[in-house]
């Protein structure tokens, strides 16, 4: 069972954070096909967020084909992504290893690498959404 958390200062809307956390969990293999997502009541009771936020996130995931709602029972995961995603992206991983090696040779420490990555990531992410 996945446990959600909310980062209020991330600038990302709450429902999107929930969606991403589910996708992330799927990729990492924490969630597999057949697993049940927490009920709206459970999520709301833990995070103190609006119920419609949770509903919207679950609808979005359903729209993406990742989960399916069974009325009266709950919302269940319909796909398993872990193995395929990690395996399919081995080349990307390689690229990333090489980039990290380059960054270290350029003299960047861990924090600088993280900062560089995050700012670039956020800028491009912002451009995608807008």
């Amino acid at each position: 069972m996945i446990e959600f958390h909310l980062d209020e200062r991330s600038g990302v809307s709450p429902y999107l954070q929930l969606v991403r956390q589910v996708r992330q969990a799927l990729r990492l293999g924490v969630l597999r096909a057949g697993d049940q997502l927490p009920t709206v009541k459970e999520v709301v009771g833990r995070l103190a967020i609006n119920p419609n936020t949770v509903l919207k996130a679950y609808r979005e995931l359903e729209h993406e084909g990742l989960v399916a709602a069974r009325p009266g029972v709950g919302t269940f995961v319909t796909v398993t992504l872990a193995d395929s995603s990690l395996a399919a992206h081995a080349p990307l991983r390689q690229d990333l290893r090489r980039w990290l090696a380059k960054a270290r040779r350029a003299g960047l420490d861990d924090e600088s690498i993280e900062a560089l990555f995050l700012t670039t990531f956020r800028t491009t992410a912002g451009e995608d959404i807008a």
Partner: protein
Amino acid sequence: MTAVLQARGLGKKYGKHWALTDCTLDVPAGHVVGLVGPNGAGKTTLLNLASGALPPTSGTITVLGGRPGASTAQLARVGFVAQDTPSYASLSIADHLTLGARLNPGWDAELARQRIERLGLDPAQRAGKLSGGQRAQLALTLGIAKRPDLLLLDEPVAALDPLARREFLQGLLEAAVEHELSVVLSSHLVSDLERACDYLIVLVDSRVQVAGEVEELLATHHRLTGPRRDPERLPAEQQVISASHTDRQSTFIVRTDTPIHDPAWTVSQLSLEDLVLAYMNTTARAHYRPVLEVQR
């Protein structure tokens, strides 16, 4: 969807002072509504009018299709948790539950008992000996176990520490899901409401400044940053909510349904807090609009 609260030209006067002026609202059911505004803006007055504690001076208000406070049936459908969550200091928690059972036809004794147990409260404990957070939970239990259709809460978390605040909101929202409650929650801090509310009413200076679904408000309000410009020169569809200038730069908060094409502007998203502050900051207001409501 039927409106859970409808007001037309609603006003309330105390002596010479208008606490609420010309309020028009159509609050839909099934939402957690945030009522935000500075102290003295009229939030408590609006909630008192909605619960039937006071009659309006002018205009009308309809709650769940009925006149507030008019009958036992109407009172049973609306729960109210007052500011400072009052309780009878010399009565025990169990006594309070008995009070609820005796005075409410729709009382759910099992629900109340379970909730008290889950909170870890001792039913024999006198209410005067409880902490602020525990008293708030007791008041919330009384409001929920009455099985209303609408629950009104007047600044319920203002005096609570952060943990008690979080626990209170958790309990409230959980109950809202479980019992399909509509909730109206007032606060003078937007941060209390940001996570919980999906409909917002901003009340400043006894008037409703803006009211609408949070999603739609955030989608239609933008921050424009760019070279210094007079607010009058902005297109008519862009309603200026607040403006601030340096000698070279202007920052506007505008409301518009149409896309912003002018390349001179950097358009950025607003947080809910920014939006509310813009409406609360009357000195930076370029144009004054008495009622702003986002039509669905």
